[in-house]
């Protein structure tokens, strides 16, 4: 059984994480980790409930979201519909009261339905390390994952999110309407100049070993008017870019196919 440590400051927490390395796991809402707690022997659980990370601070141009903010609080605090939709797709109401923004970003596939929304919205992640604070784009964070597992960057303390520029949409393909794992989850944020897409961020989870942005799909729509041909090209590019897993919910075959379908559907909403 691991030992629970509940540091009282961010510095202390960052030190514990640095000291214990792979033996340490950060315990936030506990909705994923608590299941694995008893079946593991040894190690440390580092609780983040005493670190004051449970607030959302509004900035003029966006929000600073504490990593331990529960999903139900995020939904009330940040009125971006694509992000609010994401918070409703993770477990039932009890889970949404417990699971945190930061914790969900570390969820193993096919879980982690918040990530595509934050990838599409261009969030930045701030980590506390033993050597001080470091900021990373969320796509760089996911680029650092190996074998479906996150890098050990330090303690995620907050998520910086700018006000929505352009239009964003979010869809989860799942076997049931509520409280169920993703087949594939897609979010996109598109900026248009006149009728032409000037910038696009298209992000996926469930479809790959970890959440990711999909540059090939983005390139397919940038410069287009989001016409059917561009959307089809983006959908095909996304299908080609992912390496989905097979699990009890869906096979890799079905996940890849739904990647295309749902990239298409999300972009159609934004067209």
């Amino acid at each position, binding site marked *: 059984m691991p030992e629970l440590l509940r540091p009282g400051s961010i510095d202390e927490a960052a030190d514990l994480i640095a000291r214990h390395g792979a033996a340490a796991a950060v315990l936030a809402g506990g909705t994923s980790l608590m299941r694995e707690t*008893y079946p593991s022997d040894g190690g440390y659980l580092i609780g983040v409930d005493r670190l004051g990370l449970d607030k959302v601070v509004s900035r003029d141009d966006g929000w600073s979201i504490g990593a331990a903010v529960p999903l139900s609080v995020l939904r009330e605090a940040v009125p971006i519909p694509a992000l609010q939709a994401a918070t409703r797709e993770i477990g039932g109401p009890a889970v949404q009261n417990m699971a945190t923004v930061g914790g969900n970003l570390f969820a193993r596939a096919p879980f982690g339905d918040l990530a595509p929304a934050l990838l599409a919205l261009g969030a930045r992640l701030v980590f506390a390390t033993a050597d001080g604070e470091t900021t990373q784009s969320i796509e760089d964070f996911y680029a650092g994952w190996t074998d479906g597992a996150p890098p050990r960057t330090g303690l995620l303390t907050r998520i910086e999110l700018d006000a929505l520029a352009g239009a964003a949409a979010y869809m989860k393909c799942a076997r049931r309407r509520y409280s169920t794992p993703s087949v594939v989850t897609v979010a996109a944020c598109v900026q248009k100049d006149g009728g032409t897409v000037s910038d696009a961020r298209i992000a996926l989870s469930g479809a790959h070993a970890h959440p990711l942005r999909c540059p090939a799909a983005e390139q397919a729509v940038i410069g287009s008017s989001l016409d059917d041909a561009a959307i089809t090209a983006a959908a095909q590019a996304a299908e080609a870019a992912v390496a989905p897993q097979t699990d009890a919910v869906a096979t890799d075959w079905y996940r890849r196919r739904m990647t295309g379908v749902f990239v298409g559907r999300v972009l159609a909403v934004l067209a």
Partner: protein
Amino acid sequence: MSMKELGVVGRNVGQRDLESHARGQTTYYEDVHYPRMLHLKMHRSAEPHANIVRVDTSAAEASPGVVCVLTHEDLPGKKVWNGLAAVGVGPEDEPILAFDKVRWRGEPIVAVIGESAEAARAGAAKVEVEYDPLPGVFDVEEAMSGEAPALTAHWPNNHYIYPDDHAAAQIRFGDVEQGFAEADHIVEDKYQTSPIEQAPMETNGCIAKPGGDGRITVHTNTQAVHFARDNTAAILGLAPGKLRFLGGTVGGGFGGKVDVAVEPISVLAAMRTGRPVKFKYTREEEMQVSSTRSAWRLFIKDGVMNDGRIVARKITSYQDSGAYLRFSSYGSMKHAGHMPGPYTIPNVWVDARVVFTNRPPSSAMRGFGVMAASFAIELQMDKVAKTIGMDPWQLRLLNAYRNGDMRAHRKVNEDAAMVETIQAAARLAGHDLPADYQAMTSWDRKAS
């Protein structure tokens, strides 16, 4: 007996336990609290098919909070059993705790009893088992192909052997081959169902509590208290009167709580330690260890006349029993006896086989043997209707069994009301039936 004569039968009087449920005051087996209660966790096979080379329990015994470790050597009575042995079903094929071999992933090998559920779990995780893996077989037809390894010596070709050396539960009624020869159409198809978990909200479990008098009280959520008690006694070689089983309020069953899966080892642990012992399946065990509904594969061949009469039906079924028999031979007999569904067909041939594979043993679930039969037959009926271009409602009504008909298992039909049920459903669906079909009744062939 007409309804008018009845008083409280037929009336909606509520349900007795509902207020207790709504208040959270219903007592389930694990809602009794005993001081100094121990917890049992099982070390299970990691391999679907392997010889056991070595079992080392020393680290488990030394694990903090572990009180007792039980292997097959500790079993005072039977080493293998079958729940229906008392009514002559055999052979007893399933180890209580595996000894020489494991035949499915999840098979119990060593029970570890600890001061807490966590101590027992941690101890069970420290049991070391060395395996010599064997090739596994997972598909029912492959298992019977002659190419597959035999799981046990009882069944050389991996199928159950019914009395008189029959490979299947059989129905032989009329002459199907002659029926096919006379038929205008032959309609064939293959059907497959999946293993399904009963998934009661409350997992299998029990608490065995030694009394001071040499008796042991078992709080259990079994669906059959006497059956569970008598089998527990038989397995452990105890006089049944030494055991008192208490139950009756269960958090869902659906056929998932008939296996006597937790009681014998819990009673043994309580006898060994003199303390109350609780053994509750985790949800993971409930999903992958407890019996599932059997998966079935069926091949149906029908001979059909142009006017819609089905004149012959031949069915070959494979019930995937998993590694051991449990109640599968019963399930296949029920399956065969149910054929050919609610229809009167003059020529019926059924072979319903129980097949052993390296999958978790399957067992009963809501509609044992019948659900798969109904599924396949009703899909087949639609295919027949489409093949001959007949309204599927009319096809069913034309062939529906009537009172007085001889069924394929040679019992004269009684209490039939299939025709009336289909007619009422057609009305509910807004499906118009011709006058002659509306006039049909379940009594229109009965000699009066």
